[in-house]
């Protein structure tokens, strides 16, 4: 499994190495007055004249010691930039993940219980539209409605502008968090709702539910005592497996709301040709997605014990 993580890092490194970005130009700027000698010195110092494979091993060796290099656009160590920003993103993603999971699950159960009813049809339409619309577009609509027209929430950023860091209160932070959170929750909800709805109606057709009905349980009792258990674990598994989508949505939402998290940093790093930062973020992202998939794989084993022995590649 760890091999995969290593492969992803090789892939990312090779892609960036081959990009038409000259690290020197990116660092010094296009109008450099450095002499050829000085340039050669810098190249020597950075190891730019070595083979890509050697450069990969140097980089990987440093990364393993916790040194991700210096960010060119922030002029600070990459690890500091990431540390500072990852808190914003983790709070945002964690809350959106939980909220979309709980809300989506509840909506899916309610819709799946009465297939074809009014609620079911509206939920289905809502999910279809949400799944078909780009995350940033939903973000723009949310921004336009709640921040511009209604004026309930600030336009963007994580803290109010022009307020000293010491005076930023929890209220400010929450106020700035709500709109990105809403966007990301809406975006992530479609999949889990549709899945729960489908799964519940499958479960409701199974024999043990028929038996429960025969014992005279009401529909509500059946869901509370039996059905939801059969749906909850697969739904949780799906939620863990969707870390990659969550990250993508987060990056777009952060860009729309200028929220200073890791997603906004990704685009900034790529646009400014800030290679060390970009690589650092890619690595962190890979670990993040990897953890989600690992948990999902472990949960698959719990959900379906047949997968536990040997069938891992199925």
């Amino acid at each position: 499994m760890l091999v995969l993580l290593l492969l992803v890092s090789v892939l990312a490194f090779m892609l960036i190495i081959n990009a038409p970005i000259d690290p020197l130009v990116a660092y010094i700027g296009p109008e450099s007055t450095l002499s050829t000698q000085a340039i050669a010195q810098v190249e020597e110092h950075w190891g730019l004249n070595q083979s890509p494979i050697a450069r990969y091993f140097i980089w990987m060796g440093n990364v393993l010691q916790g040194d991700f290099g210096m960010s060119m656009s922030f002029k600070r160590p990459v690890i500091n930039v990431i540390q500072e920003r990852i808190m914003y993103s983790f709070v945002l993603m964690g809350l959106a993940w939980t909220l979309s999971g709980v809300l989506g699950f509840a909506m899916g159960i309610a819709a799946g219980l009465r297939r074809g009813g009014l609620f079911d049809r509206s939920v289905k339409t809502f999910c279809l539209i949400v799944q078909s619309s780009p995350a940033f577009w939903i973000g723009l609509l949310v921004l336009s409605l709640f921040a511009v027209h209604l004026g309930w929430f600030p336009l963007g950023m994580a803290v109010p502008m022009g307020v000293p860091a010491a005076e930023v209160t929890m209220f400010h932070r929450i106020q700035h968090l709500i709109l990105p959170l809403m966007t990301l929750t809406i975006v992530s909800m479609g999949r889990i709702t549709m899945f729960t709805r489908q799964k519940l109606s499958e479960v409701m057709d199974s024999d043990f539910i028929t038996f429960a009905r025969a014992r005279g349980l009401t529909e509500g009792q059946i869901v509370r005592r039996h059905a939801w258990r059969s749906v909850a674990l697969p739904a949780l598994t799906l939620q863990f497996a969707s870390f990659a989508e969550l990250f993508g949505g987060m990056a777009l939402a952060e860009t729309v709301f200028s929220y200073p998290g890791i997603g906004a940093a990704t685009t900034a790093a790529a646009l400014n040709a800030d290679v060390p930062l970009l690589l650092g973020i890619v690595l962190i992202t890979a670990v993040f997605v990897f953890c989600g998939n690992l948990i999902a794989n472990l949960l698959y084993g719990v959900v379906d014990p047949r997968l536990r022995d040997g069938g891992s590649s199925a």
Partner: protein
Amino acid sequence: MLRQKPRISLTPRSKGSTRLNTRTRLVIAVSVAATYLLGVFIWGWFLDPSSYAVHFESQFIPPSWGHIFGTDFMGRDMFFRSLKGLSNSMLIGLLASLISSAIALAFGTASALFGGKVDKLVLLAVDCCMGLPHLVLVILISVALGGGATGVMLGVALTHWPELTRIVRAEVLQLREAWYVKASYKMGKSRLYVAAKHIVPHVIPVYIVGLVLLFPHAIMHEAAVTFLGFGLPAETPAIGVILSEAMRHIATGKWWLALFPGLLLIVAVLLFDTIGENLKRLLNPASAHE
């Protein structure tokens, strides 16, 4: 088995319009959706650039009969600009999904037919590709290729094959055990012959559905990457470009700049989904139970 409400009703429905059976209705839905999409594509393709040209005297006109989507900060008509943008996005999406699905077909078939090391390699590549969020990988590839239309197109093409590969592989794995395939092997046909003559034709329906369903993802990711500034250059009309321009003016209440182009994109995506899902049910009777 005892059920409370039978799903299949034996009494004919009372409405008069039920003469059309499900199959006919699916065919009609697919044709209508396809006609609309093709129409938008061709209209956008042959659109006269002067219809979305710059008119500084008519900046920021809200939606009206003259400009049904309004105009932007350079006085360009948003309806025609969005139309052209959607057409451009569709072209990129089409190329990307064609490449992506070709990779999936080749990888999926090879993986299932040859098994062993090839299978392991393909699965590793799939996992590797899924190990990063699509968005991040598309950005990486796009940056590596120097951005622009080719960059984003290849970026999307090279990231969207894993899911279809898995589907194709599963399908071929099943087919491999079929009697007629085994018979063909026993008659001394080569693997390549069996693959081309017996297996690929049977995978084609799955493949076509996969291709159509890939399309919306491709368009959405193209729009997202362009929105972030890595895809199509800012002067081309594209949905991503239009929406990122809209973002700059949304704080001053120019809501129409974002709402309508996005709606146009969603309608296209939904219709592609409709076509894909309906084709799936048309081509595979087993999934028509719903």
